[in-house]
Every structure is written in structure tokens, then in C-alpha cells.
């Protein structure tokens, strides 16, 4: 006990970095580990892969918060899945919103002339919530999403190293 007390302040420095990407990284790591711990108790090994993937996705989205469209889309999906009572209602709303957005923004034929339509649609399929975005928005969201995916991959490799090395 006495050894742990002085250790606390020394080994736990106040978060020194103000870099937002590192903040997101920390949040993601905490959430993801938390989810992993939960998962160890409950899930059968057959479903473990899916749950870990979902946990990685969800913890990334919640680490980013509702500032970004892609994280909002993921969070919305999770919420719709978890809240069974409001499932139908929410999905209906969601569908309505996306349809309205897509009708408003994707009707521009110049987009399709300027940049090939195949790539644009592919990118829309890859970035969560990309169906209802304008092309400009889609690009900026993609940039942020790439950053976050990188962070995710790094953190996950770190964790994996630790699990496998032990």
C-alpha cells in the first residue's frame, strides 16, 4: 500500500499533450479496453470477433463524439440497434433524413461529370454516413475518418502486442 501511494502522482502525469488526435487516441484506448473486459465475461468465443469489431467501431465513434458526421452516423446506428423500443421509430426517422439529404444534395449532375461517379459512390459506401453528403463534405469527412482509423489501428496493434507478448 505504502509503495503504491507515492507511485500514483509520479507515474500518472497529467495529460501533457493538447494534441486532439492524442486525446482521441486515449479515449479510444480506454473505451476499447473497457469493452474488451466486458466482452471477456459475456460473449461466447464464436461471436467474439464480431463483438470486438463492433466495439472497436463504437469506441472510436464515441471517442470522436458527435462533432463529425461519420461518428454521428455510427452512433446513430448503435443507438438504433440497442434501443429496441425505439428501433422502428428511429430507423424510420433516419431513413427519412437520409432520403431528404440525398435528394437535396446528390441531384447535382455536375458532381458526376467532374469526378467519376464510380469512385464517388465507392467512397460514400466506405465512409459511414456518407450517403447523404455533398462531395465537399464527403472529402473532409474522409480525411478525418482516415486519421481516426490510423489511430485505431495503432492502438489496436499496441494492445495486441501486449496480449500476445505476455
Amino acid at each position, binding site marked *: *500500500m505504502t509503495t*503504491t*501511494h507515492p*507511485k*500514483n*502522482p509520479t*507515474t*500518472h*502525469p497529467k*495529460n501533457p*499533450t493538447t494534441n486532439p*488526435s*492524442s*486525446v482521441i*487516441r*486515449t479515449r479510444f*484506448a*480506454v473505451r476499447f*479496453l*473497457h469493452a*474488451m*473486459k466486458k466482452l*471477456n465475461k459475456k460473449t461466447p*468465443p464464436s461471436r*467474439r*470477433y464480431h463483438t*470486438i*469489431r463492433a466495439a*472497436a467501431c463504437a469506441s472510436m465513434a464515441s471517442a470522436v463524439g458527435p462533432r463529425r458526421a461519420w461518428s454521428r452516423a455510427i452512433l446513430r446506428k448503435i443507438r438504433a440497434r440497442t434501443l429496441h423500443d425505439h428501433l422502428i421509430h428511429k430507423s424510420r426517422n433516419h431513413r427519412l433524413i437520409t432520403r431528404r439529404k440525398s435528394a437535396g444534395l446528390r441531384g447535382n449532375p*455536375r458532381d458526376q461529370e*467532374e469526378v*467519376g461517379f464510380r*469512385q*464517388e459512390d465507392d*467512397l460514400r459506401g*466506405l*465512409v459511414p454516413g456518407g450517403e447523404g453528403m455533398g462531395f*465537399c463534405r464527403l*472529402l*473532409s469527412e*474522409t*480525411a478525418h*475518418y*482516415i486519421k481516426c*482509423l*490510423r*489511430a*485505431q*489501428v*495503432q*492502438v*489496436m496493434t*499496441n494492445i*495486441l*502486442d*501486449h*496480449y*500476445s*507478448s*505476455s
Partner: protein
Amino acid sequence: MAAFSSSYQQQHPFHQLLDSSDLLSAIDYKMSEDPNFSLYFYPTDDTLHCLDQTSTKVNNDQGTCVFSVTNKNSMDSSSVLTHNYYDHHHQLIITKNPKKRRNSKQGSSVNSAQSKDMREVMTKGKKQKKMKGCEENKYCKEGKKEAPAAGYIHVRARRGQATDSHSLAERVRRERISERMKLLQALVPGCDKVTGKALMLDEIINYVQSLQNQVEFLSMKLASVNPISYDFGMDLESLMVRPPPDQNLSSLPSPLMQSCSPATANPYDPLLDNCLLFQQSQISNALPQGNRQVLWGVDDQRQKIINQSKISSSSLFSFH
């Protein structure tokens, strides 16, 4: 022409009174056939006077009437009338000017000149109107465009570039897209070698896909590795050793990794303490209160560890 006169009569019953006189029937006749009507029509001052009176009367009622009647005096040919008729829809103010009527008494030559002047004025007026309309439209459009685009880049059209609001907006959009593309180019490795937006997009898509696949692969690996981590004692001990591999990883050239190492190290410090506690088989009452300030997940984790430790006496190490 004939159609015009008939419709005119129908519209203005006042004209039918005038029509009964020889003069106006003559005018109507002339309008349809005789181009040199003014030569023998204008010398008669009485008729003009009469017309003047009627016109003033009409002036009280309707401006349109005045105009058409006075113009009949100054008319040289039917083409002029059509022109004026066309004009009088647009510019009624000119016809209300009494000077014109006075001038019309002075003779046909003057009248023709006058009518030409009038025509010029009218056309000018029209042009000005059109110009004004254009300008107003422009202002409206620019106002519309600039009001939402206050935060954005202000674009000026260079020589030879289109200036209507659509193409301006389109140009702004294109600039923004290329800006974002540059940002993405810096992010995605191997994207700077590629030229052309389509190829760049291909690269971006490939990169995103590869990252997503990596995440899938990692989660698969974690799922396969996970059962070992049932042993919390082992797991947390391994996490105790965690900072060194982090340092090793941060020796990679990427600055992101360097920023990562202290950040990722943070959540494990409380785990480390808990681990020690666990190893000493301490119960929650004995936990230090100083740990409260650390990250939010800690309490939960500690609780779990404690629960685990309660179970551990019988079953924890059976997972080995």
C-alpha cells in the same frame, strides 16, 4: 394593325365617340392603308384641337388612351404606330407630358422628328430599365451568394471568366474540393505521386479499405488472443510492462506515434496500481482515495478486478 384598332375601340368606349367623326374614321383608314396621311391631315388645326381636347379628357381617365391618340398625330407610317403601341405598355409617363402635344401642332416634319426622339427616349428608357433590372438581379444574386458565403473565400472572376452567380458558386465549390483533395493527398501515402482526381480518389478508397481491413484483422487477432487475457493477474502484469514497447513503437519516424505514447500510457497507470493491489489481495476498503482523479474508467475496472479477485480464490487461475 386592324386588329389593334378594333381591340382598341373595344377597350376604350370613349374612342367610339371620336370614331363617329370623319377625322377618326380617316385615321383608322390611314392606319391600315395610307402611309402619307400626315401630309393632308395635319394642316387642319381644328381637328388637332379637337384631338387635344379629347386627349386631355382621356388623360383624366386613362393614360394609355392619351398616348395612343397623341401618337396618331405624329405618326408617319403604320410601323411607327406598332412601335409606339409596343412602347406604350412600358412607358406611360412620357405620354402624359403636355409638351409633346403642343409640339404636335407645329407640323408633320417636327412631329416625325419628335416621334423619333420619343422612340429613342423610349428605347433608352427600356434599356435603362433592362439595365436596372439586370443590376438589381445581380445585386440580389450577389447578396444571396455573399450572405451565406461570408465565412468562405471571396472569389473574383478574372478576365474571361463567367460572372453569373452559378458559375461563381461552382468555382468556389471546385476550389474547396481541390483544397480538400490536397489535404487528403497529404494524409494518404502514395497519393502525391498520382495526378488527376480520379486516380487520387482511387488511392484514397484503397487506403481507407486497407485501414478498415487492418482493423478487422486486428480485431480477429484480438479475438483469437483474448482467451488468455481471462487471467487478469497475467494480463495486468503484462500491462505493467506496457510502457517500454510503447517507447519502442514511438521510435518510429511518425510524429503521431510519438504523441501517442504518453497518451496511451496514461490509462494503464491506475491499472498498474490495481494490479499490485490485486497481487497483494487487497479489498476495496483499503484502496487509496488518491486514485479518484484518474481517468473515468478506472473505478469500473477496479471494481471488476475486485470482483474477479473475490472469485479468484476458487476459479480464476483455472483458466490457465
